[in-house]
């Protein structure tokens, strides 16, 4: 599934936020590669910088507080941090697109979903999404409605006028693709008339509209209930299989990652702490943090015990005041004096994994 062609190459990315309380290193020296057709899961607690990493790729970090301090993000051979804003704008949504966390609020409430899907098509592919006839007739019909009442048949005829534009045709197609029933009617719905799952599907349709090479799903399934989540994941898998785009799943849900990802990136306090293939990480986590994450999930496939479910003690460190040495050491059960003094480097192992720890968990031992 994973080809060797590197599509996104992030080198030493640093994104800092300069607030009145101090500087927050949201993304601190992050480097990784994304291959064509690969699914990468980025895992971590809230505030560990996983979303900010992907927002940096899109260059959607809000400035003034935020700033991409240094680093390089190569999309094919282009450094995204160096390309002019106009070029970046033409890449967003077309080559790299993003699905956001909140399906409830990520759609503009004043437009029909068809309009919103058509928008990125009109922006990037130049498809016509409006129709003078539609505008004129709808304006006329509005006044007719004001004075006489609105005949249903006319409105239907009117809808047909709009849906015949190329961008709307494609919108209908996309809505059908993401598995919303009755797409010819659903394109005319406003976001508030759809359920959360449907809206998420619309979001996916918007992101898919221009056949992007990279699809970033920023906690795309977090707000949904489990059945819908499963449907959405299945849909994303299916789309990936069909169109072969690289996918980045930003989530704190390990089950989603286990289901979907080829490779997994674990982040803690703005840094990569572990990187490896999904099977490596799930079979044998080497970093205590990853170990903690995986073992704090109740397992159904293991015998019932009376022991408490293990947790990671403590809290996420204050971003303004990160601990010296290894950022994880106050919460780490393997911490020694070395961890308090020196930050471990990100080391590569023989089988291609990357670990940032002084005391790796080796096979079998805790």
């Amino acid at each position, binding site marked *: 599934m994973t080809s060797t062609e590197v599509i996104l190459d992030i080198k030493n990315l640093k994104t800092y936020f300069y607030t009145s309380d101090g500087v927050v290193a949201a993304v601190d020296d992050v480097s990784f590669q994304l291959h064509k057709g690969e699914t990468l899961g980025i895992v971590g607690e809230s505030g560990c910088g996983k979303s900010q990493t992907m927002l940096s790729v899109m260059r959607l970090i809000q400035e003034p507080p935020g700033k991409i301090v240094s680093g390089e993000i190569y999309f094919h051979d282009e450094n995204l941090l160096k390309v002019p804003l106009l070029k970046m704008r033409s890449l967003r949504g077309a080559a790299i697109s993003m699905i956001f966390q909140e399906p409830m609020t990520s759609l*503009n409430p004043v437009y029909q979903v068809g309009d919103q899907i058509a928008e990125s098509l009109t922006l990037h592919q130049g498809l016509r999404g409006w129709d003078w006839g539609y505008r004129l007739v709808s304006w006329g019909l*509005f006044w007719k409605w004001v004075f006489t009442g*609105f005949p249903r048949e006319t409105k239907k005829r009117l809808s047909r006028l709009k849906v015949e534009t190329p961008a709307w045709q494609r919108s209908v197609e996309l809505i059908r693709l993401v598995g919303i029933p009755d797409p010819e009617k659903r394109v005319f719905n406003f976001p508030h*008339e759809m359920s959360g799952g449907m809206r998420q599907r619309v979001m996916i349709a918007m992101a898919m509209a221009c056949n992007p090479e990279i699809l970033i799903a920023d906690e795309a399934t977090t707000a949904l209930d489990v059945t819908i989540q499963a449907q959405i994941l299945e849909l994303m898998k299916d789309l990936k299989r069909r169109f072969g785009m690289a996918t980045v799943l930003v989530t704190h849900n390990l089950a989603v990652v286990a289901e979907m990802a080829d490779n997994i990136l674990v982040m803690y306090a703005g840094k990569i702490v572990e990187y490896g293939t999904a099977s490596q990480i799930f079979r044998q986590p080497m970093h205590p943090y990853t170990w903690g994450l995986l073992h704090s999930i109740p397992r159904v496939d293991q015998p019932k015990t009376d022991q408490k479910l293990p947790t990671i003690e403590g809290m996420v460190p204050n971003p303004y005041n990160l601990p010296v040495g290894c950022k994880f050491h106050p919460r780490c059960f393997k911490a020694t004096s070395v961890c308090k003094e020196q930050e471990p480097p990100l080391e590569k192992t023989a089988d291609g994994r990357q670990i940032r720890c002084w005391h790796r968990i080796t096979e079998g031992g805790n």
Partner: protein
Amino acid sequence: MATKNKKKKVTVIDNPNEQEVLSSSEYSYIGMVWSRFKRHKLATIGLVLLVFMALFAILAPVFELITGYPVGHSSLAVKMSPFSTPGVVAKITHPDFGNPEKPMGKVDFWFEITPDNNPEKTGFASVKESTFKNPDYRGFYDFNMKAYGNTNVLLTNDQVVEKPDGSAEIVKGGYSEFFIERARNKRIVVYNQVVTYSPTFESVDSRTIEVQNGYKGPREVDIGEAPMNVFGTDGLGHDVLVRLSYGARMTLMIAFVVVILETLMGIFLGALAGFYGGFIDALIMRILELMMTVPTLPIYMVLSRFMGGGSAIGIIIILAAFGWTGVARMTRGMFLSLRNQEFTEAARAIGASPMRIMFKHLLPNSLAPIIVGITFSIGGVILTESTLSFLGLGVNKILTPTWGGMLDEANKYILDQPWPAVFSGFLIFLTVLAVNFIGDGLRDALDPRLKV
């Protein structure tokens, strides 16, 4: 048709299965707003009133035609009919006029030459100063009407004839026609000699002459076959109905143009400030605060002197220049809250430009409070314009009446003739009330928390 509409609505609402169909396919957002608006009784009344005002304004030339009273012309024309006896046309109302025990002193003298595209014939003359070429016809007009407005009027049929050397001479009784307004477009060199008696204005300048032969004592008033004045005539003898409907034109036109201008300006600046924040926001907000802290009335008074003194465009520019602050603040507030919404981020993520995000994504979302705000500001603009006109700083009220200007005129005769003041004041009141009702209705109708 209306009953049919109602029936359909009821059936749709009764059937819960059709609820979804109802909200999107059958009713657009505007449609929902309209149906809510219609349920607001006062707002509907306000809308009807406003439509009535608009019709009233549109029909102004019709009123002018029916009554035969021109809107901005001299009262001489108004007080006369084509059939009245020459020289006995004006209504003499001042109690002292013609009282031998109270000598009149100085008396204004003026006459008018038609602006018949011949610059030589345009202007005015006085007996003492000979012909006075005045290129600014309106200025001349102003002056005369000022003195004239406070005086009683007597008409004679003396004719003023220009001599080749530029001076003028009165030819006694040479002319007996009084078709002033009707002859306006014809080549008439001189209309009539008008003698005005000015008890209140002392600042009668060099154009004042002593009456030598003009005044022969009070005469009979002969209205002749003058048409009926439904709302009476004002102190200058204009028909109040005609003036009111032309006033509606001017007042409503000014109000709407000002509101449109200030809305465009306010939305643009507020959007920039709210969307970009930072330095741009600070700059625009400081300018805005400056605009809001400066006492506007004195500024209006000073500026209206500069802005062409009585042109509608000047007043519009002044009012719009100071009126955009409210809309700008509202827009900025809405944009500040909306720019952090997820859908803004989503719009950025599909590659929309800032302008597109601002005006295609954020503006429609913040339009509801802005529409309500600008509806209320229409009332405010009408009142401000009336105030300015009342203070004599508005549009030239003789040529182009406004309701505020009519109040000002009427104020001079308010004890004798209260009705022009009553009518114009009532119309101002009614329009502002109507607009505020509409604003109330819109506020309720646009509120998304209320269900259909």
